[in-house]
């Protein structure tokens, strides 16, 4: 989807293959392209948000090979062959992931801008299996800022999703 071939050629683009939300994608990217910008601008997956571009806010959190990462600090070329899951691909098509449902149920957002990052981060957190208590959830979710400050509802939503996911993994 690169719109300017001159740029593409002169920048010595590198060819990278990723699996994004289950679909194989072949990119030709300039080495400086972050995963965040590639997702948003090239694949039109704008569910992943840019809040700071500096690894300070967590809005850009996606899952790479099942682990949560700040996609603004991740160059596409570093992830050749990786599997990337964004908010758009978290649930099987048409359905909602237990975390997405829990976020709605607990009103774990207002403006919704941090929300995809919170949900992907929470999915990563649950996979890590480290957070058992509310305090641990708070601590391990503190890389995801929410200026609307839905924090207590985010904790409640994660707790709900954890119990659902333990019941039927």
């Amino acid at each position, binding site marked *: 989807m690169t719109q300017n071939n001159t740029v593409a050629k002169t920048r010595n683009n590198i060819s990278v293959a990723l699996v994004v939300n289950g679909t194989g994608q072949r990119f030709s990217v300039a080495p400086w392209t972050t995963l965040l910008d590639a997702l948003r601008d090239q694949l039109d997956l704008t569910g992943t948000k840019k809040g700071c571009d500096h690894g300070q806010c967590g809005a850009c959190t996606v899952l790479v090979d099942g682990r949560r990462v700040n996609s603004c600090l991740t160059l596409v070329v570093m992830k050749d062959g990786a599997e990337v899951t964004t908010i758009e691909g978290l649930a099987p098509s048409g359905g909602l992931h237990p975390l997405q449902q829990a976020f709605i*149920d607990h009103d774990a957002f207002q*403006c919704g801008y941090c929300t995809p990052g919170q949900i992907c981060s929470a999915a990563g957190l649950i996979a890590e299996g480290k957070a058992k208590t509310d305090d641990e959830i708070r601590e391990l979710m503190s890389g995801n800022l929410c200026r609307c400050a839905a924090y207590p509802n985010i904790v409640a939503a994660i707790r709900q999703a954890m119990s659902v996911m333990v019941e039927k993994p």
Partner: protein
Amino acid sequence: MAQFTAPCPPREGDISRRSVLQGAVALGALGPVRAADVVPHAAIAVDHKSQVSKPMTSYIGTATSRIDGHAKVTGGAKYAAEFNVPGLVHAFVVASTIAKGRILRIDASEALRVEGVIDVLTHEKRPRMADTDQAYKDDVAPEGTPFRPLYDGRILFNGQPVALVLAERWEIARLAASLVHVEYEQEAHVTDPYRQREAAFVLPEPAKSRGNAAEAFAAADVRHQGEYHVPIEHHNPMEPFASTVTWDGGGKLTVYDKTQGVQNVQRYVCSIFDMNPDDVRVVSPFVGGAFGSGLRPQYQVVLAVLAARALERSVRLVLTRQQMYSLGYRPAMIQRIELGATTGGTLNAITHDAITVTSQYEDFYRNETTWSGLLYKSANAQYTHKLTRLDLPTSCDMRGPSATTGVYALESAMDELAVALSLDPLELRLRCYSDRDQNNGDVPFSSKNLRECYRQGAEMFGWEKRNREPRSMRDGSELVGWGMATGVWEALQVPITVRIKLTANGHAEVACATSDIGTGTYTIMAQVAADALGLPLDNISIKLGDSTLPQSPVEGGSWIAASVSNGIVTTSNAIREELLRLAKRVPDSPFANATSDEVALADGRLVSRLDASRAISIADVMRVGAVDRIEQEKSTSFANDGKHAHNAHSALFAEVKVDEQLSVIRVTRIVSAVAAGRILNPKTAHSQVMGGVVWGIGMALHEETLIDHKFGRIMNANIAEYHVPVNADVHDIKVIFVEEQDHIVNPLGIKGLGEIGLVGVAAAIANAIYHATGKRVRDLPITLDKLQR
């Protein structure tokens, strides 16, 4: 078309909804957000005694999940920078590195040599823009000479845009921006409010002073005076400011903008570029937080439109987090309060003086001082507000403007007065309680249930167990402190227009050019419309955030919920009247002689209020009337009778724990009891107030914009060093909505919640810190170094 079809099992006591976004999002035809069918609609009982102008409530007051929630949790909600169109040009701002002076020359040649760079716009090389101040005045501009981005070579603040790089890719634009070389002639600047304190000038009296506060203070049995300091704070919404301008051909533009007022932006753009209103459509279906920063159009929208016109192409400009610090901010302020009381704990003198800051070119200010004499009864009250100018952008509204800061100072001072009186701080508030607005003609409040906020809040918190002695309570190595404060805000309303289209299948589209900045406007509009039209919530779709929709002012000041809700009821009444007119044509119509007061809309039918068995379905009425839809558009404005004050109130109770050695402060518990009239949606209302409380934690402990005055430059212009509360900073927050019926403020008795959740919180925390440590810090934020001093 994006359509989401997930099942959403409802939680107990809660109406869960999923939303459906219709329309080709990428091309700007964003459809309405609809409350879709999940839970069967409970029948609305026809209330024979109910007043005609009020809807019978079923959804109003019921905890309801956001109708736009599904879009937000799936990534379907599109924000200003997310409308991707073919051939988009990416823009990047080059910002000034001096605070004051003028540009001598700009050398863009190196930038222009980068492949993929299309152009570099500067004040010397750009399409025509208006050259009068008036043209740059937006709907909510303060007095003065508005900033004109890329207009001339004058530098008014550090970080001012001086050039705009346009490139085929964003990364290229960013690289090229670093290669634009600007030479300046620098002038001496001043950015330190304390250096400009003496230069502050007196503003017109914010409210009429009463009695003689100075004399009464001198004669008072017990006196407290103190000076309180609030630093500059920045809104830092999570979404950066952004505009995507699509070039629709023939000079027509669609502007996807981050804003709290699409029509404000539309008028502003038309006026600066002398464009026909039909040629500029401003769209903003989702806003990633704004908190006041989006009330005025920001410079990125001007630059994006400028670039689109220069290239005749679609352009996107997204500000970096750092560049967002070159927009408005909460003004720094120095406040002085004098309180004179009797030994019995009643106030006889209030003096509240404030100095706030603004730019060199516009005079932004609100009334910090008058909240004092509104909140508490005192025969004597005196207010002085001064403004001082700095070489910074113009300050602006930030959540709860003036009350957040003014009440912080007042409520800190009241706590100190309670100490001086050896009185419980809550008891002092009750002794000074005011049932009337003494600032404005000594009128009563339309409603004021603050007493009940104090009672219920104190009870839930366990306030009676407080030991009044500072440093008397502890938990292991931590000192425990309990503090309280009061909050107050205005219940404002604005003229607004709502259009409703009701179709024969019992679906309604409700449209208004207001915004939902995360406040829940989509959802409360659907709730009110469902009740007013007697339809299931799922049959309502909401259109907002589009300048082509019926008129709405900016969303701010907590006024939209009340304004748009009453607007929906007014328009629904017109729909009902039209249905009745048609129903009279039905052969043997049960409504042949009915007046519009005698009929209601319920369960998709027109129903007699006198005899519920007399009813005709909407579909039948339309069939007989040979129409397939009824459309009405009505404007609503509010006549203030001048005989009442309209305010929302709150009582805050805070617990802090302070590490005795390290002075690390944790806010472990907060109870916020709010009296704000009718609560439309307890679920979203709770989130709004809770968010406000967390803002109060930030204000008390974290937030401060730090300027290197030598360079006049912000040092912590990022979201790592400008501290906002994170999840780990937030513990137990309880929100209580105190019952408050108000038949005067507006027909639905709504007061709004956007601001009240924040007002008073910082004072409650500061007072708790004093109670824990015995140390009074009058300078926000209360960082641990200040406790160690």
